[in-house]
């Protein structure tokens, strides 16, 4: 038997004496990152990590502890810390609510009686094998460095107005996950990926603009560097000459590479935990229309284009596809074992955590069903359309999850009658994510680049508010 399993079985014996359930989640990763600057090797980073996280269920409380030391003593100590944390929650809840801490409840969240530890831990099951989706080939150091070097040099070669590629790297990752629990689950999986990006600066007159592109593959031999360099260069160059966008409301084409930012605003609201905590804007809306009828949204753990590929969730429940929104009607929240029991619905297998974090809920790969139309069709209407190509600074600069309101600085291009009138910048696009879903008029046919865990074509929105110059 392997030493980790041996230690875990010892922990299980101790947990049984305490009447506790226990789970150990282990993440192991190896990452190689190589970057070039000014055609010379700039950084070569090889980071390895192995972290184990215990979750202990005791008396209705859940305690957590993580460690990077896998000696039997360290694992035992970590288990004891997690148990002590679970007890602190139960005893603390007893004090604050006046309940009897020696009894079965209260649970750590909500008011229902505590479920048994066994029912909150996954049972042994069959998992889908994902090994056929990835290659075993190990590229040579020379080949890895070549890719990293090309990402910079071939981007710069495209046009003399490209002065630097300040953000570029080749990144190779190997990732192993293992989950053991006191119900006898021992699930393991491994994934590999090859990722590279080039983000270039383009200068003309007094204006500097930056943009980039990336590749993602699970097979080194399928990497194509040149198209990424060409695209990164063209994206940066196309933004030169940008002018302020006049303030107003416009129809908007949200670029397929930025649709994930908008969908990510929805994720917390789809979590059953957020529903139970009274934080979700979608609470009570299953079976109701929450989006335009054209929108069909799935969660597909087996879509190999996505970075969220997985065969089991962070509790060891086998992953399977889930319909979230069908023809605009909300079909389901994401649940895990505990939230499914508390809401009285099926467990969808969306437990999500790292060894050092508490239990949460999240997607595998979100997939938007594609439509029929090309980019040209989508911007080809009679009036003006803003092609929103980039949100500057992500969501934390202007999205408020508790209300769904967003106010985000962005850049893009202005179209009229299908004709590109040029780049526009210095504007803020604002609205509310739930209103935006109802305003989706068309969905394009071509998907964004692989490597995100949100896969979508372009969206045409009937109108959004723009504050510009």
């Amino acid at each position, binding site marked *: 038997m392997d030493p980790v399993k041996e230690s875990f079985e010892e922990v299980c014996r101790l947990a049984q004496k305490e009447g506790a359930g226990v789970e150990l989640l282990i993440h192991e990763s190896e990452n190689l990152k190589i970057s070039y600057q000014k055609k*010379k*090797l*700039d*950084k*070569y*980073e*090889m*980071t390895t*990590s192995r972290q184990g*996280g215990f979750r202990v269920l005791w008396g209705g409380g859940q305690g*957590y502890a*993580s*460690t*990077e030391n896998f000696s039997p003593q360290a694992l035992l100590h970590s288990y004891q810390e*997690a148990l*002590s*944390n*679970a007890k*602190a*929650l139960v005893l*603390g*809840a007893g004090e604050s609510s006046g309940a009897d801490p020696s009894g079965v409840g209260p649970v*750590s*969240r*909500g008011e229902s009686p505590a479920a048994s530890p066994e029912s909150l831990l996954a049972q042994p099951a069959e998992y889908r094998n994902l090994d056929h989706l990835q290659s075993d080939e190990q590229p040579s*150091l020379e080949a890895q460095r070549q890719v990293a070097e090309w990402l910079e040099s071939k981007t710069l070669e495209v046009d003399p107005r490209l002065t*630097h590629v*300040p*953000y570029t790297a080749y990144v190779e990752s190997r990732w192993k996950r293992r989950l053991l629990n006191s119900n006898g689950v021992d699930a393991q999986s491994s994934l590999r990926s090859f990722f590279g990006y080039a983000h270039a*600066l383009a200068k003309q007159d007094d204006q*500097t*603009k930056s943009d980039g592109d990336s590749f993602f593959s699970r097979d080194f031999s399928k990497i194509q560097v040149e198209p990424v360099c060409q695209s990164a260069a063209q994206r940066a160059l196309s933004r030169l000459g940008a002018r302020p966008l006049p*303030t107003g*409301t416009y129809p908007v084409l949200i670029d397929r590479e930025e649709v994930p930012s908008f969908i990510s605003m929805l994720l917390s609201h789809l979590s059953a935990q957020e529903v139970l*905590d*009274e*934080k979700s*804007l979608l609470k009570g809306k299953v079976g109701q229309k929450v989006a335009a009828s054209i929108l069909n949204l799935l969660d597909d753990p087996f879509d190999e284009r996505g970075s969220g590929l997985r065969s089991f969730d962070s509790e060891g429940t086998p992953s399977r596809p889930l319909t979230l929104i069908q023809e605009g009607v909300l079909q389901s929240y994401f649940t895990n074992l505990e939230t499914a029991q508390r809401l009285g619905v099926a467990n969808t297998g969306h437990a999500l955590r790292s060894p*050092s974090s*508490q239990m949460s809920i999240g997607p595998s790969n979100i997939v938007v069903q594609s439509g029929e139309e090309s980019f040209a069709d989508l911007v080809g209407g009679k009036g003006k359309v803003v092609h929103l190509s980039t949100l*500057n*600074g*992500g969501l*934390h*600069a*202007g*999205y*408020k999850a*508790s*209300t769904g309101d967003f*106010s*985000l*600085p962005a850049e893009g291009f202005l179209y009229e009658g299908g004709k590109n009138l040029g780049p526009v910048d210095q*504007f*803020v696009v*604002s609205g509310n994510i739930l209103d935006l879903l109802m305003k989706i008029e068309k969905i394009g046919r071509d998907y964004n680049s692989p490597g995100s865990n949100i896969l979508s074509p372009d969206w045409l929105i009937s109108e959004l*508010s723009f*504050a*510009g*110059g």
Partner: protein
Amino acid sequence: MLVEPKILDKTLDAALSTGADFAEVFLEESYSSHLTYLNRKPDQALVGNLYGAGIRVFFGHEVIYVTTSDLTEEGLIKAALQAAAARKDQQLQAQLKQPLKAVSFDSIHPFGARPWETAKDQKFKQLGAMDQWARSRSGLITQVQTGLNEKFQKVQIANSLGRWIYDERAYSRVSCEVFVEEGGVKESASEREGHMGTAEFLESMDRDGFVQTAVDRALLLLKAPFAPAGEMPVIIDNAFGGVIFHEACGHGLETTSVAKGASVFCDKLGERVAPECVTAVDDGTLPNSWGSLNVDDEGYPTRRTVLIEKGILKSYLVDQMGARQTGYEPTGSGRRESYKFAPASRMRNTFIEAGSDSFESMVKDVDYGLFAKSMGGGSVNPGTGDFNFAVQEAYMIRRGQIAEPVKGASLIGRGIDALGKIVKVSNDLKLASGMCGSVSGVIPAAVGQPQILVSSLLVGGRA
């Protein structure tokens, strides 16, 4: 001490074996604790340990970095040889290091009981008291979440120049988020306060005032209309208002950006980049301040670095590799989240110095504009200097007076342009704690400023 010096000796020798001209070992053992109180009771209790080393070697301007969580002699030497092997193709001669010599210092950041030495129920009681105080303030409150994050980090750093140093660092930060609802409208507001030290600061801080700020803001937002859009004068409040300088200018002054030519501040040392009323400092030596350190993560003392003096650019933030690449003196600014990251030049406690104007005189100067009282998150592209910030709490200024509250405002612009438009700096400097994410991970960094009046900024609201 985490590892005996004789093992560090062998590790550095292995790292230098293929001709690197500098080698460094960074060892870390850290303990973190995260407690939250939700639904009127303790909700989460997590603890975690990090345990590992990062080995860094330089070949001229090339950086090789390898990590391991095996701190045995064999584990460290194996990782050092891996780092050396990355450039064995150059077939250079092994380099010799200088003998290790311990560097001692007196900590200027004292701390109390370590996080694991105080019972969790004591901490939960304090979080519970904050929850109860918040809920007692208004019937519109639907949920309260309070939390305490603590970290205790032991680091040992040795390098081939013979420097060998050990340090212990304590961090603690408390948070409170309040959710309110009225007539179907939901809002929330949060406050955070942190310091470099252990959680005893909870005893002395004004907890009621801290919670009240979050409650007041959440209630205010229930009634506030959306901010108007357009160019207008903006007064940015003190304390966390300094995030605008941190994002819009500070990142562009790190050699991480400057050495790549990816900063609007490249080649501008000695030049005017701001009006005379602006003096800006990055200071790692403020006792127990959130972004302070005794020594940086490369093992060198932190210091007070004047970045801009009376509008003239005086210094960048320089780490060891940045010094090699740019030729400037290191400023004790090499920082990293943990051993999992190679260090980079990063900010510590960054702020605009107090000026001479009063806040009241600034407001009187504005006929129509915005008072950005509480800033939210923001980000910047150092290459272009484009920045954007959410404003959590804002008020319109009309005819020289603070008028109605507005929500949903954001400020956008270009760092160097906005700096140039600062026309007044108040005499009331305050600092606040933030978490800063960049190439070497997420680290504690304080921001700060007095109130400043910017003559014109683009306010994003609803058109």
